[in-house]
């Protein structure tokens, strides 16, 4: 018998101890969007992230200003995204844009050593814990939000949901998930040395969220 068969046989032989199925949580009463935005912002800032408010027209300018202030020379953008292309049309010569258009294995060293910041969109966000939801894909791969020391994120304010459970339910996650789903709730951190918090353990040192208040996703 294989290890699998042995283990399963032992478990099947054990006494049956029935336990009731846990009740599905009732989703929180839907707060108005302004409350959710405020909750999200407070939680994000408490986790050491920076949050800025902007709109559909103004965000590229704000992003470029912040990048300049933080001394970003090279910015990583995704391939074939609307927001990436908008940025590539108006960036100054002093800012080098790199497009994530090849497999990571083809430019690992450059990705790890020469990129100052990454710029992605978030799919949605969670108010109660201040978390961004990312579904990395071929346009904005996983490492964009991990390897560069600074991560800029564009978030549509209308997509902020009350809780993780409510996002899972409203986006029907259980019907099928992509190969990777991420919740990001601040810059990378550690308290492994004498409980002293240090930011930028292995991932981004800085997380900068641009909350876009007007967009196509705006609720009626």
């Amino acid at each position: 018998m294989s290890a699998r068969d042995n283990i399963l046989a032992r478990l099947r032989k054990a006494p049956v101890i029935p336990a009731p199925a846990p009740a599905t949580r009732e989703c929180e009463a839907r707060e108005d969007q302004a409350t959710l935005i405020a909750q999200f912002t407070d939680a994000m800032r408490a986790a050491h992230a920076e949050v800025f408010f902007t709109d559909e027209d103004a965000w590229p300018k704000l992003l470029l200003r912040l990048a300049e202030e933080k001394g970003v020379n090279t910015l990583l953008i995704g391939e074939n995204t609307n927001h990436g292309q908008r940025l590539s049309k108006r960036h100054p010569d002093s800012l080098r844009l790199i497009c994530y258009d090849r497999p990571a294995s083809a430019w690992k060293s450059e990705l790890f050593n020469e990129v100052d910041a990454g710029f992605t969109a978030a799919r949605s966000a969670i108010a109660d814990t201040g978390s961004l939801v990312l579904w990395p894909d071929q346009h904005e791969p996983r490492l964009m939000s991990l390897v560069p020391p600074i991560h800029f994120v564009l978030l549509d304010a209308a997509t902020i949901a009350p809780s993780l459970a409510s996002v899972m339910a409203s986006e029907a996650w259980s019907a099928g998930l992509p190969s990777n789903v991420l919740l990001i709730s601040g810059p990378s951190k550690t308290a492994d040395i004498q409980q002293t918090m240090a930011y930028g353990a292995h991932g981004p040192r800085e997380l900068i969220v641009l909350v876009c208040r007007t967009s196509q996703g705006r609720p009626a």
Partner: protein
Amino acid sequence: MKTAPMNFMPGAEFAQRSETALNDPALRSSFRGAMDFLQGKRRAQFPDAIALENLRRESEAIRRYSLSRLPDLLEQLERNLIRNGIVVHWAETPDEANRIMLEIARRHSARLMIKGKSMVSEEIGFNHAMAAAGIEAMESDMGEFIVQLAGEAPSHIIMPAIHKSKQQIGELFHDKLAGVPYTENVDELILTGREILRKKFAAADIGISGVNFLVAETGTLCLVENEGNGRMCTTVPKVHIAITGIEKVVEKLEHVPPLFTVLTRSATGQPVTTYLNLISGPRQANEKDGPDEVHLILLDNGRSQAYDDEELRTTLQCIRCGACMNHCPIYARIGGHAYGTTYPGPIGVIISPHLLGLAATHKLVTASSLCGACSEVCPVKIPIPQLLVRLRAEAVAGSPTAHPIRGTGSSSSLLMNLVWRGWALVYGQPAIYRGVSWLICRLRFLTPSAQGAWTSCRSPLKPAAKRLRDLLAEEKSRS
């Protein structure tokens, strides 16, 4: 690395290690400071006692339900993981798990494996098994990196280097890492680790991780972390191998949010961790990063023994938050290394007998004052003191059930059995009791003044000159 995997330790050594730890003021201050800090952080996350109780009940119900259907859920999980393109392996023992790791490593001619935090990998002695086969296994969690550099084992399941001060870590880095000057600045120390490990992430052939929750319905591995090293290990190398215990599975994705929130708040007092990483498959054809292969190793190693008994099965409800150790008066004083097992503290002493057998661990189950702080903070309501009493009884008197656990009765001794039998005889027969107690009062002058461990810090015990019944009789005759 110098130390052998610490997976067996005779009882005498436990007492000796505890004593050494108790007499180490620096160690005790590290643990006391850390425990106070973690207790305070947790308390601040649960301001509302009723809400906390509701969340604990919900989490307990999810874990109990999942365990009640464990074999079904494991099969469902396996089907969905395979459908998602994840390779599933099963291992009954640590050796089997290491063999599976090695086979995968050899197939990819791996020289360097980079590992995110995984207690199950500690349980199987992974680093040593790989080193023995000539493969470098490197820790990437900052705490684990420090502990590996020092040639030690983790002393806490969540904060592995909790026993070290920043001065000790500063000296360690200066001694072991070329060109690193001494500093006790934590930001600089972390930056040093970051720079060293970034090179390793990029160079590693295989990434290793643990798993916090497995979701059967979607075939998903959930990883909870703050540093981002877990994401690095599961994204950068071309192969990702996850290893975890068979008990970690839940049925539905909707079971994850309550467990996730109770885990982060109980463990480190955080409302949420920086990352929740849900992995449901290897890199897809159009993706530009992520591993080409994802493997999951499901380890039994004694868990099915705990599963076999209604009471002991509750041990498997554990979500490894470490709150029990953070609140344990014994753990706070002797620290994690004294236990000599992969999992220290209250959860360690109730799980280790299943992993290692009672013969090797029966002393550990006595390392508790049964104060109950552990079960009071346990987010999934494991009745730890009750389990300790059960395991103590198993160790001494043998199993009360038809399925004894490994090593049952291993701490019984002929002398102790005779003493208890004599005690039962005396206390069961009033005439004998009267005679023996009369005799003891008359022989009290024979009581030795050195009474072993008792008199090491207490005055000797001496029977009273008169029995209670004699005193009562005198009292009666006076009135």
